[in-house]
Each structure stands twice: as structure tokens, then as C-alpha cells.
């Protein structure tokens, strides 16, 4: 079992995470990257500031990986969430799942990103080209796992 969860302040090095998680027994190594996009709700985005309750976020991220591992049988998952100021195109989240077979890898990766969005104590302030900024509407983490929580906004 190799579950690797971190909240980081530095740019995410994807290959380093792949090296951390993958091994010679794997037939599939699946990488998901969440990146900062240049628009939201019709406004041009210049950058994003992510903030986390870091000590809790690390524990919750570890829980998310443990849950995903139990649910899918995949036992090698790495997930990083970056915090601080990010520019358009920067990687905010990286999830690497290594598995002998791809079906479980896709299921685990999907589950991890959905749970991150539902309950990781992280917040996102968008900085717009026109100089304004706003905290993004988020999800109530108490609804994590319920249909209401899953449908309430948010996209990669």
C-alpha cells in the first residue's frame, strides 16, 4: 500500500509524483491534473489564490485516498493540492493512480477528485483581469457523499 497525500506551496512536479507512486507491477499509471483556466462565469481570470486549513487538509486528503483505495482495491495513489498564488495554466491538483489494470485506476482517480471538491478544506479566490477578485462559491462539506453535495456546483 502506498498512499501519498500532500498540500504543497511549490509548483507540482508530475513526474516526481508518478515516480513516487508507480512501480514495476503496474500496467496502468493514470494522471489527472487540475489546472487554472483563463475564464469563469464569463469573466477573464488572471490567476487564482488557493488557501487551505493545511493541517486538516492533509489529514482529509489522506482519508480520501484511504476511502478510494478501499472502494476500488487500488492501493497506490498519490494526490497533491497546491496552495498560494497560481497563474493560468498552473497545476493546482495532481492525482496519480497506479494499478495493474486501468478500470480500477479510472474509478479511483474519479473518486479522489470528486471527494477533494466535496470536502477538502481548501478555498479559491479568483483574480480577474479587471483587477477585481472574489472567493469562489463552494460546497458545504457536510453534504459530502450525498446527492445534494455532489450536484452543487464546481467543475474541474
Amino acid at each position, binding site marked *: 500500500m502506498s498512499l501519498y497525500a500532500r498540500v504543497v506551496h511549490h509548483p507540482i512536479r508530475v513526474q516526481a509524483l508518478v515516480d513516487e507512486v508507480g512501480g514495476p507491477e503496474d500496467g496502468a499509471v493514470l494522471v489527472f491534473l*487540475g489546472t487554472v483556466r483563463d475564464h469563469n462565469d464569463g469573466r477573464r481570470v488572471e490567476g487564482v489564490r*488557493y*488557501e*487551505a*486549513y493545511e*493541517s*486538516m*487538509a492533509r*489529514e482529509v486528503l489522506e482519508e480520501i485516498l484511504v476511502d478510494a483505495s478501499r472502494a476500488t482495491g487500488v492501493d497506490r495513489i498519490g494526490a497533491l*493540492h497546491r496552495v498560494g498564488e497560481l497563474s493560468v495554466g498552473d497545476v*493546482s*491538483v495532481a492525482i496519480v493512480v497506479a494499478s495493474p489494470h486501468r478500470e480500477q485506476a479510472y474509478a479511483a482517480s474519479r473518486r479522489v*477528485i470528486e471527494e*477533494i*471538491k*466535496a*470536502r*477538502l*478544506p*481548501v*478555498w*479559491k*479566490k479568483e483574480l480577474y483581469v479587471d483587477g477585481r477578485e472574489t*472567493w*469562489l*462559491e*463552494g*460546497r*458545504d*462539506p*457536510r453534504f459530502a457523499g450525498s446527492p445534494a453535495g455532489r450536484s452543487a456546483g*464546481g467543475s*474541474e
Partner: protein
Amino acid sequence: MEVRTLFFAAYRDALGLSELAVTLPEGASVSDLVRSLRGRGTPFEVLPGDPAVAVNRRYSPMDRVLEGGDEVAFIPPVAGG
């Protein structure tokens, strides 16, 4: 007893503070803490009456009984990813 409260993101910006020590009677619950803070008036009424709260880094219900030294974080709706 005294608990340590933490405020993040939109809550912190609205309150103008990230951390506050709060004295409560023994046996007080999370909801007693919320009532006590909101009862202070401006700017604390920006906190919802039924916020998501983590006690010692775990999401906790409003009826959770607090102990001295607990870390109680007010968690605005989350937006990671």
C-alpha cells in the same frame, strides 16, 4: 475554559481576523460557541448560524461538546480542485 477558534478565506476576510481565543462555560457545545460569537454583534454576525465546523481538524456536528484547548475552525463552503 478557553478554546481556539480559526477563521479561513471569506470568513477571515469578513471578520478581519484569522484566530481568536474564546472563553466558554464548561460543557459548552459548538452551537453555544457560535451563538456566543454571533452575539458579539458586528462583525461576527457575518458567520452563519449553522456553519460547517471542524473540531481538532475533524468535521463535527453542532451538538459536539467542547473541551478546553480545542481547536475549532469555521469552514466556509470548500472550493478545492
